[in-house]
């Protein structure tokens, strides 16, 4: 079970069965439909999330009890309340309503199974998008392209999330496609199809999750470059710009309702100072005169979130590798980043300044946005809401970095790629073993 899957399922159930978004549900009333609550109680999935020593139902009698309960779909008068997820825009959930409806003859677990498969297919789109992006930058070097894309397709946390019902799966796919088309547009003569594709992918990202908004500056940058360099003064440029602006505006307005409550834009000097202190405290030891945010003092947030949670913390983050594994993973990642920088500095890998600007804008906006939302929660006295998986839309850029790092190898490039591919395959195998051991042993 991936984070918040029960809530996401409830959203889809409401859309599929009632044709409308689910209610948030009163604070003192149970969430979900009767069917979903019954399934969760008998399969014991809720307890699994709350207790690290707890296991889901293992005994066949639990499954028999579920069949005997006979709960099916959304009964008249029943409500599939989904809590705060109801603020999400319905694009991803509408897409999940298709497998839900396709499996409507079966029970809840049949529908859930097909919905998870659909999310899994989105991971293939993400990987294909990364492969195309890296291919755009490596020319015909298929070895680099394969190694970089494999790092995306076999990233443990991304495959875990995309194996469940979670809009992050669509977000990853939309980011990968948008980055590929955006880079293609700044490196090749533009086409109307590519411009439409970039706008479409950006809109899909925005409608998948508010984190998609972080793509907007990079998309606007690409469109501005296209308009300036290729279509200067033409009517098509004006039309393209207007279409882009309108599309992004509509999407922005649509998601604004969901974002504004959690992360109001407040540029007061005191707020910005607080944000600066928060950022310092997130990454560095707090100085004696700085304000103390309790949520940041329980651990080393930068390490926990960006290394442990981004590489692989499964379940409700409680299923992890031994601590030393993360040290190795972080060291390897750092090594690849340094090698990628070396390749850039020595001209062995030449993506171009515009491409680097697209990557930089996307990464900076996403990280800043994630931190801003987290700061609102922490500053209000609450716990952290930031999670490593929120960084995963940037995986295609990491794939590019891996390809760049390998480009330093002129003679034994294939051997380097083989090490990367083998390492990712082994990491994937261990990740699945850790999860299986947590829930079923």
């Amino acid at each position, binding site marked *: 079970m991936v984070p918040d899957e029960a809530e996401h399922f409830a959203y889809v159930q409401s859309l599929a069965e009632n044709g409308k978004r689910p209610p948030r549900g009163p604070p003192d009333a149970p969430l979900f439909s009767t069917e979903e609550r019954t*399934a969760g109680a008998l399969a014991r999935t809720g307890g699994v999330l709350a207790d690290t020593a707890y296991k889901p139902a293992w005994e066949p009698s639990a499954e028999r009890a*579920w069949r005997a309960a006979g709960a099916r779909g959304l009964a008249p008068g029943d409500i599939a309340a989904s809590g705060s997820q109801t603020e999400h825009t319905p694009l991803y959930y509408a897409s999940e309503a298709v497998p839900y409806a396709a499996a409507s003859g079966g029970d809840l677990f049949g529908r859930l199974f097909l919905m998870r498969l659909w999310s899994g297919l989105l991971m293939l789109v993400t990987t294909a998008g990364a492969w195309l992006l890296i291919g755009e930058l490596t020319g015909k070097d298929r*070895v680099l392209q394969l190694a970089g894309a494999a790092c995306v397709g076999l990233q443990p946390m991304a495959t875990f999330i995309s194996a469940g019902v979670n809009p992050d799966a669509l977000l990853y796919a939309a980011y990968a496609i948008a980055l590929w088309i955006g880079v293609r547009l700044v490196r090749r003569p533009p086409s109307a199809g590519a411009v439409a594709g970039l706008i479409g992918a950006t809109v899909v990202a925005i409608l998948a999750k508010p984190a998609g908004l972080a793509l907007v500056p990079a998309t606007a940058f690409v469109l501005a470059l296209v308009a300036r360099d290729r279509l200067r003064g033409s009517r098509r440029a004006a039309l393209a710009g207007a279409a882009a602006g309108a599309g992004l505006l509509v999407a922005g307005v649509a998601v604004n309702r969901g974002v504004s409550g959690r992360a109001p834009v407040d540029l007061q000097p005191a707020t910005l100072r607080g944000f600066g202190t928060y950022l310092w405290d997130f990454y560095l030891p707090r100085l004696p005169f700085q304000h103390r945010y309790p949520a940041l003092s329980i651990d080393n947030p930068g390490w926990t979130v960006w290394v442990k949670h981004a590489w692989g913390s499964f379940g409700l983050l409680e299923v992890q590798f031994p601590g030393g594994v993360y040290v190795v993973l972080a060291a390897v990642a750092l090594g690849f980043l340094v090698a990628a920088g070396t390749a850039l500095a020595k001209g062995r890998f030449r993506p171009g300044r515009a491409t680097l600007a697209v990557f930089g804008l996307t990464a900076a906006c996403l990280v800043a946005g994630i931190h801003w939302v987290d700061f609102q929660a922490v500053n209000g006295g609450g716990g952290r809401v930031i999670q490593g998986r929120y960084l995963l839309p940037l995986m295609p850029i990491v794939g590019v970095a891996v390809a760049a790092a390998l480009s330093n190898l002129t003679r034994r490039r*294939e051997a380097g790629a083989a090490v990367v591919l083998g390492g990712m395959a082994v990491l994937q195998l261990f990740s699945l073993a850790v999860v299986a*051991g947590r829930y*079923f042993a």
Partner: protein
Amino acid sequence: MLVIALAGAAALAIVAATDERTLAFNPGARVVAPMVAVAPGEEVCQRGLEAAARFDVVALRLGTGTTPGPPLAASVRATGSGRVLARGTVAAGARDNREVSARLAPPVAEGSAIDVCFRDAGARDVAFYGSPTYESPGHSFVGSRPGGGDIRIVFRRSRPRSALSLVPDMFERASLFRPAPVGAWTFWALLAAVAAGIPLLLAGALRRATRT
């Protein structure tokens, strides 16, 4: 590349072979709060359980406040007939909300329908941690009186088994609550795909990429 994948699979097998597990099964209740309390001499039973695997240890958490807990006489009985299948003792001195256990003799076989009972054999009241149940008021009883919820009991083996030897059981367990035709076979197929299929595919792709 295949050498790395093979080495990885071998390493995983070694880790799994040395990862010893004692958990036989747990029947569902969590540690939320003390759900049932008994006085000296009284007995609480968690009824209607299924022995999902052979076990010879039961572990639980007691609510004892600041004083050491009393000894408990543990027994496992056949549901319905009440025939005692195994007995054991929880030693006196349990601390509040810390796991304590009773070794049972003889071991209880898999598949039995059982009631698990604990009698307060000391001189002080004691409470049992657990959680409210979906089927309120749950399956705990003090005599014939229903308890407030389910007692959290964890069933263990005194002889641990390696995670590697548990793989067939794990796949059986994972196949529950899945649509037909998903079964344990699906997870064996997935294991083969991940351990062998993906490395072979990647190796093939790398070979073709190198040629290109």
